[in-house]
């Protein structure tokens, strides 16, 4: 089959990933903020016996790279083979978007221009002359709305029949004469080479990046003015209303706080019932399973049922419901465009600590999964801030720890009143943010010079998300993720635990002897050996911390019959848990080493054993010290 290779190029946040998803039927993450896609994705579709291989490149403002990360796109365009460069541009912002198109013209002439966000163009009463654009650039131009799914068929047709354009970018006179002499090279290659060498024997002045960018942008402005008419432009109602909240300083603070609170309130108040429901279903299945497999010797059946199966269903029932409420709601806020606003509002405190507001974005990703947050730290402006956000990401409770925190709050701080529980959860998250700030500041003072970087952050226009689609997508992903983790991690972990608790060393089990070993340290910190042991054993995945804890307390051999969450409290209280134990447990759950997956990701991203080690020891020390100090007071 013939293969046509297409690569998607565009400014950040113009909907490249959405377009990629629609074209190829994939489910890459999308979100209304700059830097959502940090790695390129590849997939394909088939149309009339031709395979179209689409590569989604990370969004970039320019092919003249500003940082290592931005090199990805220009490197790809210059050094890979492809048939068409599909430039995706923001139709509401042609003045800027066309600059990137011009830069792409300096690399290849096989260009197709897709103007996305046409739905917004209509809402805002902007008019764009499609024919003029086509004529100027001598390329196919397609009007798209990835949100409405409009223009996709036309785009596919155009991709099937695209041809080379005759358009040449006209540079500033001196630059043009330089490029004319370098005829054997692709213009962009020549430009990048000149910028790198900073010298050319035929050249009397050495142009800077600025000169080139000025060139492209001025030309882009000039062309945009010819094709776009903004005389009737109106501000979108959504922007007007939501921006209203952010115009006033106090109001913007309260808005952020309010959204966080409502999000957590809904999660808490709605997740109890499905949790109990899942518990009862899974535990009622125990009987039939055990009788079905009764032909097996008990040496095989017991570890399966009391080790693997119980850990698995416990993880699923505790994790699934809150995650299925929290993440869809969070995705909706993300699609609206709230995340960059939070980064904007919180930049000042982070800047005081040597970082910048963008760290909030990596923290938000960390709420989903710390490993993702660590990879997301690529959006940070320089290496120092990237390291700061990687090392502190663990202070945001991830997917695996969030439900355990929720369960603790429900058990010890009143399940009857979701408002107060949500308040406490909000406080815990704010505690996580404060710890992040303090540790960032400490790291900045100890390890890094006080170099300052510039902070530039785009604030996208608010966009109304497809609510049902967002919820379903997020559900699908979370269910798969949690079930996957339960089967891959929790089930085997349950098995292993079963053997630990059954392997006898003298009078007591191996598990028990570990616990006794850790107990003095635990008492010193105001907790006990079982709690420390469960965090240690939770290293492969935080999801199994609570099951291990109950295993430790049930003193015994197997996870005791646990019908619902409330039954667990009895068990904890019987083991001398008080509210202060719960508080210390919560602190430890926020401040301890990252899980194995995150550690591996940190190793990969920092490429340094020292920082990987630091990322392990740092939060652990914070947790231990905090507990040691606090347990005297509470």
């Amino acid at each position, binding site marked *: 089959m013939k293969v046509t290779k297409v690569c998607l190029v565009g400014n950040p946040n113009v909907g490249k990933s959405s377009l990629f998803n629609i074209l190829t039927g994939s489910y890459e993450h999308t979100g209304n903020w700059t830097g959502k896609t940090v790695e390129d994705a590849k997939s394909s579709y088939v149309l009339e016996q031709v395979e179209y291989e689409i590569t989604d490149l990370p969004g970039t*403002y*320019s092919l*003249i790279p*500003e940082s290592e990360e931005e090199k990805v796109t220009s490197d790809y365009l210059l050094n890979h083979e492809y048939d068409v460069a599909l430039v995706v541009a*923001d139709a*509401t*912002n*042609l*003045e*800027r978007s066309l*600059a990137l198109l011009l830069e792409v013209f300096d690399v290849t002439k096989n260009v197709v221009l897709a103007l996305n966000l046409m739905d917004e163009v209509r809402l805002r009463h902007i008019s764009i002359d499609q024919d003029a654009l086509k004529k100027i650039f001598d390329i196919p131009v397609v009007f798209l709305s990835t949100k409405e799914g409009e223009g996709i068929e036309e785009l596919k047709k155009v991709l099937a029949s695209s041809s080379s354009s005759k358009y040449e970018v006209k540079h500033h006179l001196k630059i043009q004469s330089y490029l004319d002499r370098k005829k054997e090279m692709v213009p962009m290659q020549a430009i990048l080479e000149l910028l790198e060498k900073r010298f050319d024997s035929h050249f009397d002045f050495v142009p*800077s*990046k*600025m000169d080139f*960018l*000025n060139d492209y*942008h*001025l030309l*882009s*402005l000039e062309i*945009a003015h010819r094709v776009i008419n903004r005389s009737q432009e109106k501000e979108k109602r959504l922007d007007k209303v939501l*921006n209203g909240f*952010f*115009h006033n*300083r*106090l109001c*913007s*603070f309260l808005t952020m706080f309010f959204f966080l609170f409502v999000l957590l309130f809904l999660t808490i108040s709605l997740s109890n019932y499905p949790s109990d429901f899942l518990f009862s279903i899974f535990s009622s299945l125990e009987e039939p399973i055990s009788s079905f497999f009764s032909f097996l010797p008990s040496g095989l059946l017991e570890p399966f049922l009391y080790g693997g199966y119980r850990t698995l269903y416990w993880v699923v029932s505790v994790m699934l419901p809150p995650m299925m409420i929290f993440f869809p709601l969070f995705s909706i806020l993300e699609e609206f465009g709230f995340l960059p606003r939070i980064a*904007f*509002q919180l*930049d*000042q*405190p982070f*800047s005081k600590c040597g970082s910048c*507001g963008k760290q909030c974005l990596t923290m938000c990703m960390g709420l989903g999964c710390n490993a993702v947050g660590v990879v997301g730290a690529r959006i940070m402006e320089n290496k120092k801030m990237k390291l700061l956000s990687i090392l502190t990401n663990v202070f945001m409770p991830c997917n695996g720890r969030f439900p355990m925190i929720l369960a603790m709050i429900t058990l010890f701080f009143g399940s009857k009143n979701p408002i107060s529980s949500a308040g406490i959860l909000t406080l815990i998250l704010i505690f996580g943010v404060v710890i992040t700030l303090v540790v960032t500041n400490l790291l900045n003072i100890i390890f890094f010079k006080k170099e300052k970087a*510039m*902070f*530039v*952050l*785009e*604030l*996208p*226009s608010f966009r109304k998300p497809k609510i049902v689609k967002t919820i379903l997508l997020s559900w699908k992903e979370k269910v798969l993720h949690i079930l996957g983790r339960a089967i891959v991690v929790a089930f085997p972990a349950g098995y292993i635990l079963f053997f630990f608790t059954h392997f006898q060393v003298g009078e007591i089990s191996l598990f028990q002897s570990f616990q006794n070993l850790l107990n003095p340290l635990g008492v010193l910190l105001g907790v006990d050996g079982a709690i420390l042991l469960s965090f240690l054993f939770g290293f492969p995945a935080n999801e199994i911390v609570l099951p291990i804890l109950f295993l430790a307390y049930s003193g015994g051999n197997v996870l005791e019959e646990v019908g619902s969450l409330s039954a667990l409290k009895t068990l904890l209280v019987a083991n001398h848990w008080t509210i202060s134990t719960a508080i210390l447990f919560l602190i430890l759950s926020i401040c301890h080493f990252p899980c194995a997956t995150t550690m591996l990701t940190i190793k990969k991203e920092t490429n340094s054993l020292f920082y990987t080690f630091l990322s392990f020891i740092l939060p652990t020390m914070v947790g231990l010290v905090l507990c040691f100090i606090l347990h005297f007071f509470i």
Partner: protein
Amino acid sequence: KKQAKVSHLGLVKNAYIQKKHSSMMGNPVAYQIYGTVFALRNEDAKHIEVEL
């Protein structure tokens, strides 16, 4: 180098720039150039020459 970063957003010579609103601590401040709204810290913004 600092200049290049804002040029990416379209802040080049003779561009028309508008102040939108400031964050809750008064720094950074959001500005608009054509369709782009972006935040700049005051200490960075003071290097930009404007004509009123």
